């Protein structure tokens, strides 16, 4: 790919992003990557962690926003903070363990010590600094805004901009559906995280998460080994739909198929009688009728732009490190107080995305081959036309297509272009437009 520079105006972006084609250099150009960090990752809301990962006062976990190292801490009062994991002395990483419990963090290099709210408490041999006045300005860096939705904690480096709920827009429904599957309404994200590194651009992962066209090819082997019916959900005859939720958020909505099959817990590849405790708890919490609907509809398959993929039984967090280097963090979703269901979720997660798992390895192979392929000199474009002729609106006003259509990929690029065209400006990005037909979208 010929190197580009970051387009300065709309006309220049036209040369790289069309409604149904994108230029390959967007995956390979380091200048584009740097601009993406500033305009997308360090400005919009980005998913960081879950409240249940820091359940106790003074708990902390080490997280990230793209290449930025982040500490997510809960202070003694219970408030959650997102701090930059970078010592204000000479930039050492302050926390190294993946998680811990401490009211204060002591940098290993020269011993500067910070409270878990980021305040500098002191440093060794303070007379070397001629007094302690400057301490006030030497607290840990902070992510400007922190907010959570249904326990999912997001951060934004922009002081101002849309609220988290405005940013999530049509995607809030995915979180609501997910927690409704939990009898207590709460998730327990404590199974631990696997990390898979891919030598590929982060956008290939984002686009693939709601790509309903590839499963029958890339994942044919795991579907046949596991005698899984998932492949059929992504077939030409499937009634499932691909959906543009606005704001770059996209979905493969499998509910039409699950409703047609009408088998409670079928979405989870099992039957209700194998999970009696869970079924009983859910019925008690939601009533038998609603419980049945919930167990048929199952968990969402939604890519929350730019980095959180809710993949039915797993969460993926996408972390770009360089133009051709991305880490995928993955964990099994666990429901509070449901050991029977959780055990199965963990087993399925290990089978699909564990070290010897079959699903993610297949996808990662595709990401890395894609990254090599996109360097070819010609052709220069990637084609995203699939299903343009059959795009339509659903009852909520969202654009949808067939299960295998590239509605999500077009939606992702449309949103990407808006964010990138807004430039480096003052950080204010308009909230995504959310359709309001039927008034059913919050």
């Amino acid at each position, binding site marked *: 790919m010929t190197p580009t520079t970051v387009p300065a105006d709309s006309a220049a972006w036209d040369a790289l992003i069309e409604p149904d084609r994108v230029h390959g250099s967007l995956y390979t150009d380091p200048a584009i990557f740097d601009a993406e960090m500033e305009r997308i990752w360090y400005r919009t809301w980005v998913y960081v962690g879950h409240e249940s990962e820091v359940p106790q006062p003074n708990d902390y976990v080490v997280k990230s926003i793209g290449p930025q190292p982040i500490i997510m801490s809960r*202070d*003694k*009062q219970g408030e959650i903070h997102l701090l930059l994991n970078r010592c204000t002395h000479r930039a050492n990483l302050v*926390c*190294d*363990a993946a998680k*811990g*419990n*401490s*009211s*204060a*963090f*002591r940098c290993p290099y020269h*011993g*500067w*010590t910070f*409270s878990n709210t980021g*305040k500098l*408490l*002191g*440093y*060794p*041999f*303070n*007379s*070397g600094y001629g007094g302690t006045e400057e301490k006030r300005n030497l607290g840990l860096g902070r992510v400007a805004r922190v907010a959570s939705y249904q326990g999912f904690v997001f951060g934004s480096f922009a002081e101002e901009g849309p609220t988290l709920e405005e940013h999530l827009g049509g995607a809030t429904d995915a979180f609501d559906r997910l927690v409704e599957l939990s009898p207590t309404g709460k998730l327990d994200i404590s199974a631990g995280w696997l990390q898979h590194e891919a030598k590929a651009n982060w956008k290939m992962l984002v686009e693939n998460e709601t790509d309903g066209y590839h499963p029958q090819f890339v994942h044919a082997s795991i579907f046949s080994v596991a005698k899984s019916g998932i492949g059929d959900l992504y077939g030409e005859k499937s009634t499932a739909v691909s959906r543009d939720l606005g704001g770059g958020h996209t979905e493969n909505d499998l509910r039409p198929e699950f409703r047609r099959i009408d088998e409670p817990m079928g979405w989870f590849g099992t039957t209700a009688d194998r999970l009696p405790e869970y079924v009983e708890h859910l019925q008690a919490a939601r009533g038998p009728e609603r419980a049945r609907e919930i167990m048929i509809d199952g968990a969402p398959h939604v890519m929350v732009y730019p980095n959180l993929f809710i993949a039915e039984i797993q969460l993926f967090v996408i972390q770009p490190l360089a133009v051709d280097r991305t880490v995928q963090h993955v964990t099994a979703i666990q429901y509070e107080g449901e050991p029977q269901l959780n055990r199965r979720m963990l087993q399925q997660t290990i089978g699909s995305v564990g070290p010897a798992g079959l699903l993610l390895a297949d996808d990662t192979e595709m990401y890395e081959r894609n990254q090599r392929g996109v360097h070819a000199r010609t052709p220069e474009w990637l084609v995203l036309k699939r299903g343009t002729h059959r795009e339509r609106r659903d009852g909520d006003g969202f654009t949808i297509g067939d299960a295998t259509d590239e509605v999500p990929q077009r939606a992702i690029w449309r949103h990407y272009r808006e964010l990138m065209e807004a430039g480096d400006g003052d950080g204010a990005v308009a909230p995504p437009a959310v359709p309001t037909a039927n008034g059913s979208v919050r």
Partner: protein
Amino acid sequence: MSERRERSLPLGEAAAGDTPVELVSEFAAVSLVVDRDGNGPRLRIEDLKTGQVGFLDPLELETLAWLPEGALHRFLDPSFHRWREERERG
């Protein structure tokens, strides 16, 4: 380390039932055990990185349980006591 206090009792000789507990984070590693050498019990804390030992009696521990948020901050300042120029030894 001139400030280091002598252990009052080797850990292995602690009273039955008073098994030492190690608490380790990435910032500190301590061993805790109930010391019964005095006229009443107290908590013996050993800094496993240096061998430094300190004791806390029940009233001191109760006080800690009631500490308001931030009350330990001045003690967590490395210059408060442990790392001060005037305490530097050759």
